[in-house]
């Protein structure tokens, strides 16, 4: 692959902040967005907490009639796209609309919208199902809304890859730029899982936290007192841009998306293919393991998953100074948005030369051989974001300090 791809803008709707600045400030402060669920009656649920975006008003970002025709996940995604555009200083009117595309991921589609319509279908009658169900629920709904809103006529794709969808959207979006499908790609993920049926569905994954009380402390990746996976809602979108295109318009560059890899465990259950994923991601970026300063781990807070991930990271980076963190302990795991938010944290770490102090980590588990005390200021060269998902899929992406700043 040739042609460098850089990140020039970011938009965030997260449980700990809306917009890049609030998100980063609250991330530095360690503020948590995880709280008890009050949107629906959780008495029959084992998990009663989630990372929730409390002060998000869709109409602040999206036209009222479009808000009515779309799901909450789309609202948060369109808001992130708008913020990313402004953050990148991207004048869409000056761009060739056929060269601006998107690569999005989500896990559940527009299920908050669909739950009402499923109820209408099965308890009232099909004639009461909204005409907008057909366009609000399916996985590619958001790319269509963003494309039409801004007149973007380029390459657009939407994928589902469980919790690594966000990582993959950035990696495959960068590949699409390198292969000449577009010059600019909105890449990211979005999810609105704080809905009764989605929570019931997710309970069957047997991963969710059963913590009661102190919700902000419940999500404890790699900690001996872990309680399980805490879900969150939100969206994260970055502007991926062909480096020459970014340079020509004088764009600020947060980081280069230097490479990545996707692997599957197949029938294997151990950390082998996650370790291979990390190592191939580093190699594909033209780096060596010792060049990686920091890893943003997935850290779902479930014992065997955390051990497996820790073993894979230790296998690849263990002999080096590489530190590890799980920033999403502040927000809950936003599923397909998770990889995008991790990449945004990584890009901010690189551009601000700052790491985030661990939260909810009072006693690292003895089975976790990682350097989790990442509270240093340093000149960072490269950060890796990794994750795994259902069926044993692994994805890692590598962000590198932008060459424009000089090495």
């Amino acid at each position: 692959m040739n042609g460098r791809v850089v990140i020039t803008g970011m938009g965030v709707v997260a449980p700990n902040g809306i917009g890049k600045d609030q998100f980063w400030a609250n991330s530095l402060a360690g503020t948590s967005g995880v709280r008890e669920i009050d949107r629906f009656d959780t008495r029959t649920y084992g998990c009663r907490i989630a990372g929730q975006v409390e002060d998000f008003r869709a109409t602040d970002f999206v036209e009222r009639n479009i808000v009515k025709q779309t799901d909450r996940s789309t609202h948060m995604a369109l808001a992130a796209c708008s913020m990313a555009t402004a953050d990148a200083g991207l004048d869409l009117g000056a761009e060739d609309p056929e060269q601006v595309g998107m690569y999005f991921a989500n896990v559940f589609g527009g299920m908050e919208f669909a739950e009402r319509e499923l109820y209408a279908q099965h308890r009232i009658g099909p004639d009461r199902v909204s005409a907008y169900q057909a366009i609000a629920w399916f996985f590619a709904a958001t790319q269509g809304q963003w494309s039409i809103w801004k007149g973007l006529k380029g390459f657009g794709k939407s994928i589902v890859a469980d919790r690594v969808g966000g990582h993959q959207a950035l990696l495959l979006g960068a590949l699409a730029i390198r292969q000449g499908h577009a010059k600019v790609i909105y890449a990211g993920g979005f999810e609105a899982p704080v809905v009764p049926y989605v929570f019931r569905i997710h309970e069957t994954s047997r991963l969710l936290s059963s913590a009661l009380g102190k919700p902000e402390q419940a999500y404890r990746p790699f900690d001996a007192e872990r309680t399980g996976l805490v879900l969150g809602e939100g969206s994260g979108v970055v502007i991926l841009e062909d480096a020459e295109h970014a340079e020509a318009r004088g764009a600020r560059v947060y980081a280069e998306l230097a490479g990545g890899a996707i692997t599957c465990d197949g029938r294997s259950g151990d950390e082998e293919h996650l370790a291979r994923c990390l190592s191939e991601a580093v190699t594909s970026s033209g780096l060596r393991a010792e060049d990686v300063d920091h890893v943003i781990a997935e850290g779902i807070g479930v014992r065997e998953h955390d051990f497996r991930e820790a073993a894979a990271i230790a296998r690849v980076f263990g002999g080096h100074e590489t530190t590890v963190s799980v920033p999403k302990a502040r927000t809950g795991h936003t599923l397909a948005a998770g990889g995008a938010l991790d990449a945004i944290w990584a890009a901010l770490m690189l551009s601000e030369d700052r790491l985030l102090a661990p939260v909810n980590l009072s006693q690292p588990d003895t089975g976790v051989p990682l350097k989790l005390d990442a509270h240093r200021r340093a000149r960072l060269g490269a950060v890796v974001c990794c994750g795994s998902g259902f069926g044993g899929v692994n994805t890692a992406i590598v962000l590198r300090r932008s060459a424009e700043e000089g090495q």
Partner: protein
Amino acid sequence: MSERRVVVTGYEAITPAGAGAAALQDAVFNARPCGGPVTHFDVSRNSSQIAAAIPDFDPVALGLEQSDAARMDRATQLAVIAARAAFARAGLSADSVNPLRAGVCIGSAIGGTGFMEEQFRRVCVPAEQKPQWVSVGTEVDPHLYGAFLAFSVSVEVARDLGLNGPATTMATGCTAGVDAIGAAENLIRAGLADVVITGGVDAPLTPIVLTSFDNIRALTRRNDAPQRASRPFDRDRDGFLLAEGCGILVLEEEGHARRRGAPIHGRVLGYASLSNAYHMTSLSPDGEALSRAISESLTRARINVGDVDYINAHGSSTPQNDRNETGAFKRTFGDGAYRIPISSTKSILGHSLGAASAIESIVCLMALEEGVVPPTANYETPSPDCDLDYVPNVARELSLRVAECNASGFSGIHSALLLGHKDLRVS
């Protein structure tokens, strides 16, 4: 490094024509339309009450373990069964492929919605208070998460075949099949894999999916004549016939395929996809965006506009799509559009959403291999806005070198895939 080229070394389909590529070939090339009344759920309050179902699909009889079948939606069952057959037809086995270099990228519009919806129907009750709408009981199937997940159609194939390369599910709705094939091609060209299992699958014959399309008048209402209901490009077309199906292809780097002496069914020459930025469901009559997608696929494949021998159209049988497509072909090929045979496989199989264009890509490979252009069934009365050669009702012998397969879907996505004869010399 020399350019990596992509060939197709295996395929399999499970469609309303039956299980297997032979059943597909027989129905499509002999113009035997599928379709019937929907009987497995209540459609008495729907306007469209017909669909094209896969007859007597029994995953266990087709080789799936009962315990595996039980944790999968019908779509995933179809994908796993078809992928096994395509993998074997490609002459691949655990010994002949490096599993680290083999991935899966299958397209699906709705994933495991059928499984999810059935569980919802069993446990949902009205909520006691607003703003919550629904309360759901606790007695749901323990496999619900993985069964609903659209990613399962791909990752379960990777697990079943023991593949350790990349896996993703392309979820772009009605263009997902060719989009998955295009993404698979890109993975191989970029050197991220040597073999990718790709294609599309959907099992949308469920109450909410039928209603969703029905309530926006996208479906045919010709309930008294299901096998004549899908009539692309005909004057009396009135909407698409909802269908289920699965088409799986094995894409492989050409050198890899040749070194192991694999059967080569054809080439993937190029792929492009663009958005119309026009409307979520409506299409402009001039076909501008689809035309751009086809032109770009030609440019990427370095194929001249005059070298396209056959078009397998999206041809969904909705009034607007077939008009849009006809416009797009004229914009792209000029007067040449009148000389290219065009047909719609949906006239025979209906519209299986994300699976359709994958199945249609297999039909293109069959046409290239056999030198026969498949027909458009149910073509009776020419439509004033569709005046090209739609190969009415009877297949046509014709030596083909380049076939174009395109798809259009909600969100304004238009995608085009160019397939070539296995002996076509590529620059």
